[in-house]
């Protein structure tokens, strides 16, 4: 075994990447099946002001606060786009683009303010744009691990309702499921999926890590359960590969590498899929 694989920093980076790849990939399943891939893009860009505000609150790098801020602004952006698309003549994609553009702009402004504070460079705020695997600390692993456990545990608790709501919302409502609760839950799950990888993959490309593994998994299986875990595995593998390459070559941002690995898996999946010639409905 090459000796660098035993390096504690490399192990930390790989473990962190595996956790976030697993969570983002698995939770992305619902987003892709519910045709919400681009909401993920809106949320990940909208996470930037939250990260900056999370930093400004304490003036130091506190990952839980920054990620909490990211969830709040990400969800706020999703809600704002929902409100806008309710207005006459405003289509859903224009509403999402408005939300994405405005929240990201606010993030850039907040970032430029935060960078004047002492300690901003040490907090690695810039790395939240394109991601930096090497910025992962040992203490972050506990947080990533807890989020992964809670997110996957919560999904397994409402698995049946979420499945019904994804494939047949009308029947789900008729069967007594509360549509708003389940939809809010799935949107929150998407927000968590997007936010968990921000530090390593960056706000600009994080949504691709939510979408690509699910799309790849969908080519190989038609079962929701199998797709969920396969997407998680693909996400973990892509994130670990990308993170290790970037951790070993200083100066290479992690986000682009992770996304390119995940996209390569999608290409392989598209070519080798057993459904290659069949028309797809799902």
């Amino acid at each position, binding site marked *: 075994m090459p000796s660098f694989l035993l390096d504690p920093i490399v192990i930390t980076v790989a473990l962190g990447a595996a956790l976030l790849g697993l969570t983002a990939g698995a939770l992305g399943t619902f987003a892709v099946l519910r045709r919400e891939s681009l909401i993920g893009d809106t949320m990940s860009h909208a996470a930037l002001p939250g990260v900056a505000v999370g930093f400004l609150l304490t003036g130091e790098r506190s990952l839980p606060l920054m990620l909490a801020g990211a969830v709040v602004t990400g969800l706020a952006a999703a809600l704002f786009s929902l409100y806008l698309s309710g207005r006459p*003549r*405003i289509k859903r994609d224009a509403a999402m683009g408005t939300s994405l553009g*405005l929240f990201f702009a606010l993030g850039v402004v907040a970032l430029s303010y935060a960078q004047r504070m002492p300690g901003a460079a040490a907090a690695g705020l810039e790395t939240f744009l394109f991601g930096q695997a090497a910025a992962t600390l040992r203490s972050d692993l506990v947080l990533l691990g807890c989020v992964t456990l809670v997110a996957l545990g919560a999904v397994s608790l409402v698995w049946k309702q979420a499945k019904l709501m994804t494939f047949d919302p009308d029947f789900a409502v008729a069967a007594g499921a509360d549509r708003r609760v389940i939809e809010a839950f799935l949107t929150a799950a998407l927000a968590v999926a997007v936010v968990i990888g921000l530090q390593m993959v960056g706000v600009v490309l994080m949504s691709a890590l939510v979408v690509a593994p699910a799309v790849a998994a969908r080519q190989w299986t038609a079962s929701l359960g199998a797709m969920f875990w396969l997407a998680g595995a693909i996400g973990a593998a892509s994130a670990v590969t990308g993170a290790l390459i970037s951790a070993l070559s200083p100066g290479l941002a992690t986000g682009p590498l992770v996304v390119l690995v995940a996209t390569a898996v999608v290409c392989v999946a598209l070519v080798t899929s057993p459904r290659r010639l069949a028309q797809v409905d799902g």
Partner: protein
Amino acid sequence: MQVLFDDIGFVIMATGVLAAGSTALLGSFLVVRGQALLTDAISHGIVLGIAVTFLLTGVTTGPLQLLGAGAAGVVTVLLTEALSASGRVRRDAATGLVFPAMFALGVLLLSLFARDVHVDPHTVLLGEIGYVWLDRVTLFGLSLPRSLVVLGAMLLVNLTFVAAFYERLSVAAFDEVQAGLHGLRPRAVTVALLGLTSMTAVAALDAVGVVLFVAFAIVPAVVGLLVARRLHGVVMVALLTAAFAAVAGYQVAVWLDLSIGGCMAAMTGIPLLLALTPVGRAWQMS
């Protein structure tokens, strides 16, 4: 005259107005057609075009880059369409796959091979409008900032295109089948619109970067849709919103010492919020 173009504040504001205006002009038609997020895909896709053009020819500016990167923007859209037409991946997921992959490859190539050039990933993402006055060209005996000249030309081209094809653009904006029946070749107009949008994104890149471009392409058009009833009204309101945002954004940025590009894009939010208030709504009704 020259005094004006040596004034840094004026140059930055003028660059912002031209970038925001030429973007919002084409953005209006894309938003009305329900293709708002194509601007997101295009603005990311051009980064791969910039990287490839640089690797092949070594240019980081000029008409060659404009064409190469502009073509990449169109390719992004066509690839997305082809992937979703294959029936294997839905449209939203196809969009969410193609442009991040092209953007990621572009950023990677730039950070590997173009580190010392001004097209580094950070500039591509956010723009550096604060420095646009440094890079100058001489025209008509005047020393002018390059961005200002390029964006001015871009705005003229876009205005000419819109004026020449307004009818086709507005028909195709609402009903592509109908436009086809009238022999208006909606597909050709669409591709031209996408091509010009891509070139505008390249021209505006120094000023506003990839993501803020999206704000200028979409938000002013949405404001227009909220307060104006007819298409030309939508376009006018979008242009006014864009110009206001660029000027007001610069003032706020200088006042509070914040990111200029970020403030310009964020300022499009003020007219949007106004349009969403009861006053804005009443205006739309009348």
